[in-house]
């Protein structure tokens, strides 16, 4: 039995006290201390289940501890601390409360031991994270927030329907869905929406660039990674998941290359990098799942760092488009170095954390002799490198005489430096990471052939970039995604409701108004009945409905 508290509860209860604490310095200490307390709490957790409560005839498990949940729990709290440090200058309590509830509910999903508890925290995640978008207080963020919420409600409905069917069929809320029935696919749809499966991914590049500068750092971490976590828990080794993963890898990269908005480019790269994790889960071997979870760990660090860097750039320049940026290396050297470290990490360059985990997943694809998976992941690796050469070049090194900026506040810089340090630490000494992975690790990241292969891949991609740079120039255009079709479909539904249904309603309403008037007139003068058409139709309708009611009552439709 664990004596420790469910880690998510500390953040959720901690969120409620935030508005009550004064003065500001004390509040800042309080904000940081919650993650420290949670980290200590996780260290105290023992393997097994605890905090089990009866609900109807089921047992809800709030804490299930194993190596998988611990690994993801550690990194969630570490990045939680760094993101809070990054957001320490934010004065609006509401943003902190939303972020804390979001982190707490994500931890709730990670340590949940049954499907009902997962669903409960799953929905809190969606409901709280949307405020990190709305707090931008722009027209775009309002719309993006609603679209985000709609998509997550859709995913939540699919998940709940799947869970109910699964529980009805098996009677268990702890075992995962198996066998490919309807519940299997509905639950996969619910989890897959959070993991940004194609074509359910549209909420991600739509909403993340419109979140607050600090809120996006939280958002880029938790939603998609909880999706990968539950996939690893319940769908490891499912072939469809592996193929979906590599499609995500390449799709995200291609769309990222088209982007001009820096945070939108990063958002598409979340899809691509989550693709590696999903592919690893789908491959399902110990090496692949280790690689997938290692990539979750690393991606959280470098993607958080990238959003921090771009947040700093946007805060200090007021510009978010690559076509308007450039030359910031001399004004923001700390941000520039951190961004380069994050870019090398996400590209999987030797010496940085992405190299370790990406190599594990790609090697796992080779071990199961699936050439398609390996080639797709290599294409995505090249595309990632190109995207981040583009991002760094057009933000920090391209000529732009019209721009000046200062470094961001100390707390933002400190958060970036600490995150960058952890990216390099894991890259240089990967045993730190191996120690917390779900399965025993028998993998050597730094073999000469692997290092050389990655170096060759990047040098030649860099060579082509050098000679064909104009093909990567950012343009002031919008690249439509499949959300175009969703928006058209929603407009269609709106038109049907507004025009068709409203007209039918008006027609029926007018009919019955006429009928009522006719009845009143008939009451005054019964001889007028044959002259008024609506009475006849009204009586006819009444007779039809009464007949149907009679048939139902008599049991003809049983």
């Amino acid at each position: 039995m664990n004596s420790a508290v469910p880690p998510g509860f500390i953040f959720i209860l901690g969120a409620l006290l935030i508005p009550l604490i004064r003065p500001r310095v004390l509040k800042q200490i309080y904000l940081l201390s919650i993650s420290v307390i949670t980290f200590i709490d996780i260290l105290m957790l023992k393997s097994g289940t605890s905090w089990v409560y009866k609900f109807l005839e089921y047992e809800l498990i709030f804490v299930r501890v194993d190596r998988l949940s611990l690994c993801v729990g550690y990194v969630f709290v570490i990045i939680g601390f760094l993101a809070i440090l990054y957001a320490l200058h934010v004065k609006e309590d509401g943003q902190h409360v939303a972020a804390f509830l979001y982190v707490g509910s994500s931890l709730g999903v990670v340590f949940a031991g049954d499907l009902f508890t997962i669903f409960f925290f799953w929905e809190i995640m969606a409901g709280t994270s949307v405020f990190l978008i709305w707090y931008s207080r722009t027209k775009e963020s309002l719309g993006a927030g609603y679209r985000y919420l709609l998509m997550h409600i859709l995913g939540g409905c699919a998940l709940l329907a799947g869970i109910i069917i699964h529980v009805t069929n098996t009677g268990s809320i702890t075992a995962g869905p198996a066998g490919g029935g309807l519940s299997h696919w509905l639950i996969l749809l619910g989890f897959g929406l959070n993991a940004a499966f194609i074509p359910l991914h549209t909420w991600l590049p739509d909403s993340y660039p419109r979140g607050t500068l600090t809120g996006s750092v939280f958002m880029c971490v938790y939603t998609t990674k909880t999706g990968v976590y539950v996939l690893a828990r319940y769908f490891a080794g499912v072939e469809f998941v592996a193929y979906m993963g590599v499609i995500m890898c390449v799709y995200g990269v291609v769309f990222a290359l088209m982007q001009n908005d820096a945070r939108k480019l990063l958002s598409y790269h979340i899809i691509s990098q989550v693709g590696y994790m999903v592919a690893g889960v789908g491959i399902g071997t110990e090496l692949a799942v280790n690689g997938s979870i290692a990539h979750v760990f690393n991606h959280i660090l470098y993607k958080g760092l990238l959003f921090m860097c771009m947040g700093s750039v946007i805060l200090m320049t007021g510009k978010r488009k690559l076509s308007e940026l450039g030359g910031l290396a001399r004004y923001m050297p700390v941000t520039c170095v951190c961004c380069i470290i994050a870019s090398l990490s996400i590209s999987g360059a030797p010496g940085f954390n992405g190299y370790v985990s990406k190599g594990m997943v790609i090697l796992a694809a080779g071990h199961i002799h699936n050439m398609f998976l390996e080639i797709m992941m290599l294409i995505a690796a090249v595309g990632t490198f190109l995207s981040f050469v583009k991002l760094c070049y057009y933000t920090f090194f391209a000529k732009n005489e019209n721009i000046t900026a200062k470094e961001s506040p100390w707390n933002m810089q400190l958060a970036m430096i600490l995150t960058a340090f952890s990216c390099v630490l894991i890259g240089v000494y990967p045993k730190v990471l191996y120690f917390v992975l779900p399965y025993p690790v028998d993998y050597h990241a730094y073999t000469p052939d692997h290092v050389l292969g990655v170096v060759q891949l990047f040098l030649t991609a860099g060579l082509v970039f050098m000679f064909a740079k104009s093909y990567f120039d950012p343009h002031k255009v919008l690249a439509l995604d499949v959300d175009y079709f969703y928006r058209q479909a929603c407009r269609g539904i709106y038109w049907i409701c507004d025009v068709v249904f409203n007209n039918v309603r008006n027609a029926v309403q007018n009919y019955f108004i006429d009928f009522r008037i006719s009845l009143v007139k008939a009451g005054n003068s019964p001889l007028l009945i044959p002259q008024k058409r609506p009475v006849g139709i009204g009586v006819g309708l009444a007779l039809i409905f009464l007949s149907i009611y009679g048939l139902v009552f008599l049991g003809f439709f049983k």
Partner: protein
Amino acid sequence: MEKNLKIIFFIALGVSYLAGYFIHKHHAVFFYHHIPSIEFYFGIIFTVFLIFIKYTIAFFNERKEDFYE
């Protein structure tokens, strides 16, 4: 400075290509794993492929920035 960086880049490119003939893959599974410096060729092929795909898709889906407004 820029010229020196380019010289270093091209030297690294040449050295890495030649090194591919001396360092063999530990986990050679597919036929292309046996080709020396295969990643060298992959880097070029995949970059050109991505540019092609990007421009093909952009032909259909690129609109003005205020398209949704």
